[in-house]
């Protein structure tokens, strides 16, 4: 469905993405993992043009685009086919949960208001928040805000949803509700690319792991195989570190 090749990105001479080749098929859930600064978030942002890539090709639904020379119209067309969930939620603070969800339908896609409302309510129901439809973002917990953001991303029936560390800004006790929503999306065969630090989510929900380091995809594979027997030294070190941190936090909780 999507194929990326030779994606490069530098910030002020610092190479952040150093030639990424990547592809995803319909229904795939890909977890992108790696240490901070490995380029995961930038990779995701380049795919949705929130950052402009220096070079690289993107194949989307059979059409090929030059990532370094995208036209405004092309960007908007592709964004119409995708959803994006941010680490910081970024709900529109002047709008209720319901209006946040309808915005992409009513303004961007000119869907009639009635249809949009019904679709938005269905989406809010999917994330378990139909009773919070009239609430403003500041009246919702972080976990609820992120679930509204997910409803906003899925209401347009995108071909693919990008998740950029969707639980990293949440208190530990609130991550579960967001991960559950994502898990049920995955079960419904939504195509997803998830940048995450949640190893258990990556292991249990994703059907492919992409491990990044130093702006490159160092290793990818099936979750079980990857976590049990990573083939590169860097992946081994990263997994060992992640396991250690998870054990420590469990001990602290106990």
């Amino acid at each position: 469905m999507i194929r990326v090749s030779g994606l490069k990105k530098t910030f002020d001479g610092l190479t952040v993405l150093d030639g990424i080749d990547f592809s995803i098929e319909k229904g795939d859930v890909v977890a992108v993992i790696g240490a901070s600064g490995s380029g995961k978030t930038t990779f995701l942002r380049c795919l949705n043009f929130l950052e402009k890539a220096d070079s690289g090709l993107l194949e989307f639904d059979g059409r090929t685009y030059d990532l370094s020379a995208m036209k405004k119209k092309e960007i908007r067309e592709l964004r119409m086919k995708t959803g994006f969930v941010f680490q910081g939620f970024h709900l529109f603070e002047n709008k209720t949960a319901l209006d946040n969800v309808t915005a992409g339908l009513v303004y961007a896609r000119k869907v009639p208001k009635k249809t949009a409302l019904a679709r938005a309510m269905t989406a809010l129901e999917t994330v378990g928040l139909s009773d919070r439809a009239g609430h403003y973002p500041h009246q919702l917990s972080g976990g609820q805000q992120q679930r509204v953001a997910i409803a906003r991303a899925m209401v347009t029936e995108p071909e693919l949803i990008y998740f950029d560390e969707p639980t990293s800004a949440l208190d530990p006790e609130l991550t579960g509700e967001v991960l559950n929503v994502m898990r049920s999306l995955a079960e419904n065969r939504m195509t997803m690319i998830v940048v995450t630090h949640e190893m258990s989510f990556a292991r249990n929900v994703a059907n492919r792991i992409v491990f990044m380091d130093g702006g490159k995809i160092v290793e990818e594979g099936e979750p079980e195989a990857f976590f049990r027997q990573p083939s590169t030294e860097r992946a081994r070190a990263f997994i060992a570190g992640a396991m250690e941190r998870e054990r420590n936090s469990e001990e602290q909780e106990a």
Partner: protein
Amino acid sequence: MGNDVFQLVLDSFPKIILPGLTLTLPLTAVSFLFALIIAVACAMIQFANIKVLKQIVRGYIWIMRGTPLLIQLYVVFFGLPSVGIIIDPIPSAILVFSLNEGAYCAETIRGAMESVPKGQIEAGYCTGMSYMQIMFHVVLPQAFKTAFPALSNSLIGMVKDMSLTANIAVSEMFFRTQRIISQHYHALAFYLELALIYLLFCTVLTFLQRFVEKKLDVSRRKPKAVELPPEGGMP
């Protein structure tokens, strides 16, 4: 004698407040409306960083904020006729006040737009909205709320500054008061009366400001009751 002054002040009250209601307030309302339109346009040009237009807007703000309002009035009303452009007092007042206030409000609104978290703009793009849709549905509504107290200040300031138009023969409250004093003397009593009328106007506006501010404050809002359309197909 004291009673006579009191009677004079009382008799002159309608004569002074009437031009306030028919000139000062309408002139302010019209000028401020134009000022807001100019300000939003200028703020959006600066916010969007449109190359040449941005420089023009900066130049305009620089000149309007860097020169006295009274002199701007004089340039338009007394100066322009010498190059063949003759504008009546009231249009002159509206022109100068709109342009002058527009420059100040542009900066207020631009600052308020900058304070809207950038993530919301990115989120807008990701839902497929265009730049202008994001501006009108996300950024400007929030910016307007932030800018409202400062804009109210500007409005109240403009009501009082309207007295400057007495200098270009707009027969508003200050102008009429000066006429009355030239007939009856008692400058202190009449000027105090005039000041009191301005105070009255501004008090009403201050109350109005507080009322609207409460309405705009999202954090005070109760969750909206959600009404679903009947054929929405929802349980």
